[in-house]
């Protein structure tokens, strides 16, 4: 009973939208570059997801707090300034405390700056809403991004290397599909995940899926 009530509050709706209805990867189809690039290993994916969630939450909070001061004509510049500051913080943090992960992620940490999800949420949500809702929205969309990435990474790492978190799981006679470890393989997995996701969504909300196009 309680769960159903939560789903109808504003915060509950924000969460459901971010995680399920308007999932950034499967519905908005944003941030695909990073999805393809860093989902070959689960540890990379977790580091990347944590980075994106951190940048998203801090950016949304700051944008929401400053929303009445941000000059309309300079808003994209302001968002980029804030986003890049936090991304550099994440980059330095990874370099200092997780040098191994930082090395394998390479340029993709810096490329969080160009991740459209963050700019998109800042522009379309955080700059128009209270800090609490901006925070919840950023968290929900960030988690929505993270769990799709984790699903893709699980499939790719298991089938490409036979491991999970670099721990061998599949028996050695099982064929390793090297192609899934490379960027082209990510397209296949992403497409299949998108297909399953959209099918499930269309089944649950049959009317909405038609006008979503």
């Amino acid at each position, binding site marked *: 009973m309680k769960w159903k009530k939560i789903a109808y509050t504003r915060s509950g709706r924000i969460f459901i939208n971010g995680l399920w209805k308007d999932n950034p990867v499967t519905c908005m189809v944003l941030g695909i570059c990073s999805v393809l690039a860093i989902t070959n290993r689960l540890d990379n994916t977790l580091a990347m997801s944590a980075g994106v969630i951190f940048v998203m939450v801090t950016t949304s909070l700051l944008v929401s707090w*400053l929303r009445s*001061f941000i*000059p309309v004509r300079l808003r994209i510049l*302001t968002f980029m300034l804030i986003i890049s*500051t936090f991304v550099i913080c994440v980059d*330095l*943090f990874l*370099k*200092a405390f997780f040098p191994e992960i930082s090395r394998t992620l390479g340029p993709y940490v810096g490329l969080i700056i160009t991740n459209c999800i963050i700019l998109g949420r800042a522009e379309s949500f955080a700059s128009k809403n209270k800090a609490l809702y901006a925070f919840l929205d950023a968290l929900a969309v960030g988690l929505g991004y993270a769990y799709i990435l984790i699903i893709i990474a699980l499939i790719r790492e298991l089938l490409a290397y036979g491991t999970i978190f670099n721990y061998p799981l599949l028996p050695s006679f099982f064929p390793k599909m090297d192609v899934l470890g490379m960027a082209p393989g990510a397209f296949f997995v992403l497409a299949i995940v998108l297909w399953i996701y959209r099918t499930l969504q269309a089944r649950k909300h049959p009317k909405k899926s038609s006008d979503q196009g």
Partner: protein
Amino acid sequence: MWKNNWPSLLFIFLLGSFCALLLFFVQLKTQPLIQAHEDNAKKKAILNALNLPENGTPDLYDELPVGTITCFRSKSDQALAFSFSGSGLWGPIRGILSLEPDLKTIRKIIVLKQEETPGLGGRIGENAYLTLFQGKLFEPELKIIKKARAANEIEALSGATLTSNAFETLLNKAYHFFRQNLPLKNQEKMP
């Protein structure tokens, strides 16, 4: 124009200062750790380049000043290693080059830092490509070209001509600098 825009400009100026300050403090806190990791990676690369065990201690090699750089000489087989740096296509390339005791044959090249195009020029950082350099000669000059045949020629990376050219130039430059500044005494001492 200034009359209408000064609040925007002030806002951007304040926000920019805040971001700069934040980054300054984060940088201040993380820099020692990052530096330590880099030093550690360099030490490991030197040991690796000299074919010494990676967890070995620095007393496995001597340090000799050569011009403005430091050269590392393995105590067991007199091989030499030194660091090189120069500009690649997009950013600096840094690494360790080790030579056999004859001072012209490459033993190993390790790239510690590069910012070349991922997937194209970025492959100069991969071991699969760097092993091609093993046993190649700096005499008369190292060449990274298409269809490499001679002992001083290495196959260029396809799709990354500019990176290959830059890498060739900076390796030759580093080698010649090293040879010119190598004290003759040391050369005679080495058989």
